[in-house]
């Protein structure tokens, strides 16, 4: 099967019913996408498929044939972090960091789709990403700091 991953074409011979999460972490060695629950509840496994945020534990890898998949590893341009990643660092939005990859992708898409999101918009957009460390306060701050 073939798809585009972080901007580059990928070709894999893999059972289509496998979870995209497992294929990313195992066959493709991209461990930035995390498993927090395997039930689609925590969002730690969030990736973008064709620009929409989804839980990769709920996606069969066969379903991303010909799709554009973006993981946390695809955000930065080499060493150049995105404004959002830098904001997470500056505002203390990452503590233990396990929710951070999924959170960044959900926030990334929110910022792309919403012009000047309010704090409430941000809460709605990130409601599918559980964080236990931060109370969400500085995550929301970091995302709002990136609105133009």
């Amino acid at each position: 099967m073939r798809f585009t991953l972080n901007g580059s074409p990928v070709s894999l011979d893999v059972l289509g019913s496998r979870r995209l999460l497992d294929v990313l972490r195992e066959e493709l060695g991209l461990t930035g996408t995390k498993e927090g629950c395997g039930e689609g509840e925590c969002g730690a496994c969030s990736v973008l498929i064709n620009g929409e945020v989804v839980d990769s534990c709920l996606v069969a890898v066969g379903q991303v044939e010909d799709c554009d998949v973006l993981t946390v590893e695809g955000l930065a341009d080499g060493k150049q972090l995105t404004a959002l990643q830098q904001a997470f660092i500056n505002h203390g939005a990452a503590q233990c960091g396990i929710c951070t990859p999924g959170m960044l992708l959900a926030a990334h898409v929110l910022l792309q789709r919403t012009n000047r999101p309010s704090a409430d918009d941000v809460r709605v957009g990130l409601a599918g990403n559980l964080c236990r460390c931060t109370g969400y306060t500085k995550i929301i701050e970091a995302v709002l700091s990136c609105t133009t």
Partner: protein
Amino acid sequence: MLSRSPIGQSVPRREGVAKVTGAAKYTDDLVFVGAWYGKTVRSTIPAGRLRSISLDPAFDWSQVVVVTAADIPGENVVHLIRDDQPVLARVGGDIRHKEEPILLLAAPDRPTLEAAARHVRPEYEPSTPVYELDGALEVYSTIQITKGDVDAVQGEVIERTFKVGLQEQLYIEPQGAIAIPEPGGAIRIIGSLQCPYYVHRALKRALKLTDAQAIVVQAETGGGFGGKEEYPSMVAIHAALLARKAGRPVRLIYDRHEDLAATTKRHPGVITHRTTVGKDGTLRAQDIEIVLDGGGYCTLTPVVLSRAAIHAAGPYSCPNVRIRAKAVATNTPPNGAFRGFGAPQSLFAAELMVEHVAERLGISSVDLRSKWMLRLGDTTATGQVLTESVGSELVLDAALKAAATVQPSNRPTVRRGRGLSLVFHGSGFTGSGEKKLQGTIGFEALADGTFRILTASTEIGQGTKTIFCQLAADALGVSLDQVVLAPQDTSLVPDSGPTVASRTAMIVGRLVQEAAVEIKQRLGRGEKAPLAIQKSYIQPDSLSWDETNYRGDAYPIYAWACTIADVDVDLVTGEVRVTDLVTAVDCGKALHPVMAEGQIEGGTLQAVGWATIEEIKMKDGGYQNDRLATYLIPTALDAPRIRTILVENPYSRGPFGAKGIGELPMDGPAPAIIAAIHDATGVWLDEIPATPEKVLAACALR
């Protein structure tokens, strides 16, 4: 040379770039070629005897490795305090809780592993399980704190009983460890953990290893909150037994369901207060009883009980106090460490008691707190004189000043209310804990001009690595990037003590500071790198603690917090939404303001969850809420706006005056929310979580 000290600056997190790029490697991210997968087979009954375990011959057992209690080379004990908890239940031995580990499996792939597990056939002789808190099974610990003579006091007596529920730490990264056999009979554990040396000690006992043969390394850890204080020892020993028998690395990574079903939770309990007051509101006596449920094995229960007891009277000055606390066994999974560690439970009751007394006397509870609160020079329930850094009034004033005016609800079926709480929390280990521990760090000046900190204190999100580097860089007068840390690897670093008890910045950070100062002095005197020293904790002479009578200086210092919570209560559904929360925290000194706020905000939301939606229902000795779809923590949409005010009221022995605050944020929100619900609806709940079911029923009774 650095022109400005990084102390008090919110410098970038040391491992921040790795965390935002997905490069940070947590336990399950690590790859070990040829590693097998491990699994724990667990009891399905809550009490009885394990009569036998047979392996169904329909499965080809030559494909897998099986470990039972008979395979344990050392002691069949997960070493902690009482040493009552087996690594694996033995055939013919007791089962004391559902999910108790009975057998381990390792296989080259997950399907084979799952198939093997389905073919394990345990047989049990169930006995009647005990769930009541009357100590019928066993009393793990009792503590009595006495001050003055409560029985001799006259006045108006108000009595009330409160209940607090179980809570799961819910670190977003589940428990896990990888065990790798190494030459010379050594075993290396790489795991998600808070306390490498706890695991080290437990590993040695169970696998009969020397200090050098047991190697414990902390991987990047996705949250702990106490849930990875003692439990990782169990995971590590299990992984090690499998790896040793398989002769290859074994990955033992829990999935969320197993983690929820089988690992430790916050101790639930019942707390009764009988408070005697004068007509003018003078606090004359506090008579308090605490019963905590420790579950099937002792784990850290005596220490949790200790902290609960010491904080039970609240941050108030009272001449006559009696606290009788006990912790009992039940046939439920063992409870363990969770941020706050007994204090949130007892402070919940203490703070609501103030509200009830205030209501009875017709005084505002804020005024009553002002009247009762501990101030400089006052004596606590254990007879400790507070000689410095008492932030009670400061935080109360700061919170009241910062809280916005309550806007009335504009919906007829939604009532709005506000509640306040005042709490304190001892920083560091209780009594002679730090003295016994003698936490030690290493500090080196390297030939290339950099400096290295060697500590077993772990980064679990709270900022250990960043803050230690700030302290060292400041003391040395160098830039932050000239300071590095050795890995948290027991073969490389000494034991600075566990990453718990709000001690890391205050106690261990102080050692880092002292070591850096000494290294700087020696370099200044002309000594040349490489230099290496160690620094160990020395208990100040002024602190004295009587462990037998539970009297004296329980903690080196206390941190203080005042919380004001605003809630909306929906009368149609009973749902409680915490909309805003202001908390003023006396932290001594904010070494890193953003990180200090981060600790407060995170702990606050955990407490909000504990008070409202984090409910665990029991069924036949097991948790019904054993999936993330049924154990619910607050999402971004549930979380209140949290405003934090840092109050700096220095402590003479903390680095730059800093006091430990990791746990304090857990103490205040729950009682403040219950008080706010009362303010909104007129109903008093005595129990958390204040679920909509309870709120609606209570409102209906009015």
